């Protein structure tokens, strides 16, 4: 079992001093060195190919390596990007993460028909496979639906029928395409997903060949017993996301647009690893007991200081996970 670092811990969609520096190649080049310095040899990258959504337009044309264009225009080529990572001590791009919510934001931003979402999502996943191959990665992590809030606003129909069937169809095609190219597709849990709770198990059954990416913080917020679920799916877990939270969704944010930015009640949804209430060690122990030999991806989601957050992450993983495993 190996521990990688999700670079989505650098939250670009927030306010704070020096946020623009994080859009420069210079920031990322330095940050990759720090990721290596705290002991991570693998990284997971976000993937977003869009530019109608204004946020994606802003983040997609700078030094954030979040799509093929950014890698080519700012780092020369995928090969040069990988060579740079290797020089810094990062051996592998383990995976890239595709979030279906980004496809929905593109639909909204471009004032397209809701039905266009399906094709955009499908195309985004297929593009991500090519991007992943160019970076020699093996894992495509997919957040399988937009936020329920967006689905309710845009589709207004029976989400459990047509939308679900169509999603299964797209994901099945993506898995088939990925398998041909030696890529594992892992479906990630989110508390705001249509497939929250036990619906994810049904989705996994329907999308043959897919794996489960349990995002532990999301699962806990949704009310799922994390260790029990990981144990139940231990043979199909891939790229498990170590994330932490102490958040209780008492205002039903899971139903709302921007579910991760609550307006009422408690607002801090995620916290640094070890500062929440998720039983992270037990979930990892389940994988170890099952001789899992893949990557576990660690994320300080929305940490307020990415440098300190990274140091804390490195310490936590080594001292509170790796050294405590039986």
């Amino acid at each position, binding site marked *: 079992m190996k521990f990688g670092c999700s670079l989505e811990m650098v939250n670009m*969609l*927030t306010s704070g*001093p020096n946020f623009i520096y994080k859009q420069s190649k210079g920031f990322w080049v330095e940050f990759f060195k720090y990721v290596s310095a705290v002991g991570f040899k693998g990284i997971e990258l976000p993937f977003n190919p869009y530019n109608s959504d204004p946020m994606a337009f802003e983040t997609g044309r700078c030094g954030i390596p979040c799509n093929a264009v950014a890698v080519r225009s700012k780092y020369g080529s995928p090969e040069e990007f990988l060579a740079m990572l290797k020089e810094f001590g990062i051996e592998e791009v383990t995976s890239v993460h595709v979030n279906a919510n980004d496809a929905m934001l593109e639909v909204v931003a471009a004032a397209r028909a809701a039905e266009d979402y399906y094709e955009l999502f499908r195309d985004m996943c297929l593009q991500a496979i090519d991007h992943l191959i160019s970076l020699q990665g093996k894992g495509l992590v997919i957040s399988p639906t937009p936020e329920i809030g967006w689905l309710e606003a845009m589709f207004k129909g029976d989400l459990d029928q047509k939308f679900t069937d169509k999603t299964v169809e797209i994901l099945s095609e993506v898995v088939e395409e990925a398998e041909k190219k030696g890529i594992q597709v892992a479906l990630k849990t989110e508390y705001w997903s249509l497939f929250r709770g036990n619906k994810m198990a049904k989705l996994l059954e329907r999308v043959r060949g897919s794996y489960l990416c349990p995002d532990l913080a999301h699962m806990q917020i949704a009310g799922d017993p994390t260790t029990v679920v990981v144990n139940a799916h231990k043979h199909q877990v891939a790229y498990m996301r170590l994330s932490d939270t102490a958040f209780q969704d008492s205002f039903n944010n899971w139903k709302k647009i921007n579910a991760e930015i609550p307006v009422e*009640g408690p*607002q801090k949804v995620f916290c640094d690893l070890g500062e929440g209430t998720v039983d992270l060690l037990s979930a990892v122990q389940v994988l170890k007991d099952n001789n899992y030999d893949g990557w576990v991806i660690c994320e300080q989601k929305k940490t307020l200081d990415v440098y300190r957050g990274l140091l804390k992450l490195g310490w936590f993983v080594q001292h509170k996970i790796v050294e405590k495993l039986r």
Partner: protein
Amino acid sequence: MGNLKYSYQTNMWGLKVQYPQLTNWDEWYKGDFSNAVYYLDWDQIIKYHIGAGFTGIELMFHMEPYIRQFFGEAKKFTEFVKKRGIEEVTGTFAIAFNSQDKSKFNEALQPLDAIADFTKELGGHRINIMPCGGYYGLGPLDKEQIQNAAHFMNEFGKRCAEKDIIPCVHTEFWGSINKDELERYIEHIDQKYVGFCLDTAQVSILGFDVVKFYDTYHDFVKYFHLKDTTFPNSPDELRLCAGAEFQDNGDRWFWELGSGAVDFVGLWKLLKKYEYKGWIGLETDGTPDPMATMLLSKYYINHVLHPIYE
């Protein structure tokens, strides 16, 4: 009362200000004990503007969906900021993508009409607008494309006039209306419906003398983005490459007033000469510390520029 009132573009705080208002400061501060909590919500950010003496604000086009999602309607955002002392949301910023392509005229207008509606709902009267897409991948534009882009802006200006809004052309050093295109573009602009937002740093980076530029175009200039730069007359290879706005080494293009090469004193003498009155905007995107930059800029205005004209 002076002749000048000051507004500030809010893009220096973040791509998105996540929260309208924090419900429990300690949720973020306790245990963290850093200054991060000071930057997370509109409630506090607006108060910084007022505290520093900036009674207007501007919004970026990419903030629109979030304003609508979190405040319900744009006018509720305006009510929110007015309650905290803002006099006016002076305007927004947009980009006229595809304006050079006649065949995409209607398609290109659609998002801008939406921004115009948004601006009107906010109570704003100007849209600072990049006249075409970025240079990389699009430029150099030919004569016809420049004419098309100007024609597009004129038509958009007419539509805006119905909403009591004026689009103010805002050139970017990385835009396809660049150093060699700008004056030819202006020749085709109908100044009855379209104005110019003189971004002092952008124009300086392009290679123009800001003071001479204003002297020439003072009737056309309806608004300003004051900011300084240490890269005046920047070479093509820096301005026209992919993602030029984000320098690979992390260096910043824009600085607080008085920290770079822009001759603000010369500009202020002309503001006095031409009796400019009304809102003046500042925009200092790229600063590592928006609060410090805002205060330093206001200090410069109060102590260096106001003795000339206020």
